[in-house]
């Protein structure tokens, strides 16, 4: 094969480019770390364990969304027996109060873009919120 040099050279170039993200970060001293979440002070887990939430919080939120918007059923009883509003802004963010320090940590790390924040507020007024 007279093209052997060209082919091998091209292959090496390709492998180098494809693995660029890996060795560039190593060289720059910024290896990837798993995201650190700021967890709320009280670990109540009213809707499921952390493992369940990690795997299924999206399904829970979608189910809540359809139950509230299409079913008109606005409240849910948590595992602690208390009644909560099925609301991202009012209930989830009551404890997980900072989107930047909680939600965005994992979603940014995994590049899993969510459209929630296109419409829903990630900030609550300190007072004057109707509960």
């Amino acid at each position, binding site marked *: 094969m007279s093209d052997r040099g060209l082919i091998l050279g091209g292959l090496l170039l390709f492998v180098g480019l494809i693995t660029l993200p890996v060795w560039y970060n190593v060289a720059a001293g910024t290896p990837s770390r798993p995201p650190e979440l700021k967890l709320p002070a009280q670990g109540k887990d009213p809707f499921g364990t952390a493992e369940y939430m990690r795997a299924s919080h999206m399904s829970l939120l979608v189910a809540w969304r359809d139950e509230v*918007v299409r*079913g*008109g*059923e*606005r409240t849910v009883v948590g595992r602690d027996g208390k009644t909560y509003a099925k609301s991202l*802004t009012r209930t989830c963010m009551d404890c997980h109060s900072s989107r930047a320090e909680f939600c965005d940590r994992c979603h940014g790390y995994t590049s899993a873009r969510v459209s929630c924040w296109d*419409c829903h*507020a990630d900030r609550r007024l300190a007072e004057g919120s109707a509960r």
Partner: protein
Amino acid sequence: MSLDRRAFLGVAGLSALAVAGTRSLDALTRRGRAEGASEARAATRWAMVVDPGKCRKDDGCTGCIAACDRAHNVPHFSERAHEVKWIWREPFDRAFPDHGGSLPEDAARSQSVPVLCNHCDNPPCVRVCPVQATWKRADGIVMMDYHRCIGCRYCMAACPYGARSFNWLDPRPRIKEPNPEFPTRTKGVVEKCNFCEERLALGRPPACVEACTEGALVFGNLKDPRSEVRRLLRSRHALRRKPELGTGPNVYYLV
């Protein structure tokens, strides 16, 4: 087992058909069950009665409009083409174009009336929505699901009252007084008055009704014979917009 191309295509086609078939069967056998139906809801028929006579004559009174915009993060676009409005005022002749036209000295001529979604009994918008992003709830409210809307604007073409608005651009920068208690919408979806169903769920009246200082807007349950709306409709003549179209509007205008 070796599968030749023809057999593979056949299996793939049948599988796709099966999935589509079960979905369609689900849809067709839903038997028109109203979503969110419950006994309490079925005993309610929300309606609004507007008394244009009490509506302040100057067009400067926009208390109902401001309250609605604030409660629901309705954006304000200065270009008329991109306007988003849930409730607004129209001259009487334009809200009621088929009522013979007023002579210049007629009382109705100078009157402007608030107009909004009529939450019709037989809504054309609900009929045409291809994804059921809008539907009629058991208590009469024509609801919107902004998560499902694909932005085809067929409902806007279908509405005979021009009650619906589309988000041609991102609404968030154009919200005058953001209310974090209520979501905004995003560009590319249709929106309209929802009779404040989130306030009704808490036992509160719609924002426009609460804000009106003149008592021109009355809201209540048509199925309750003792409600204020029934009382008003028993004692006064009322018009509805374009009743000949068979839509069955639930916003009444006293004459």
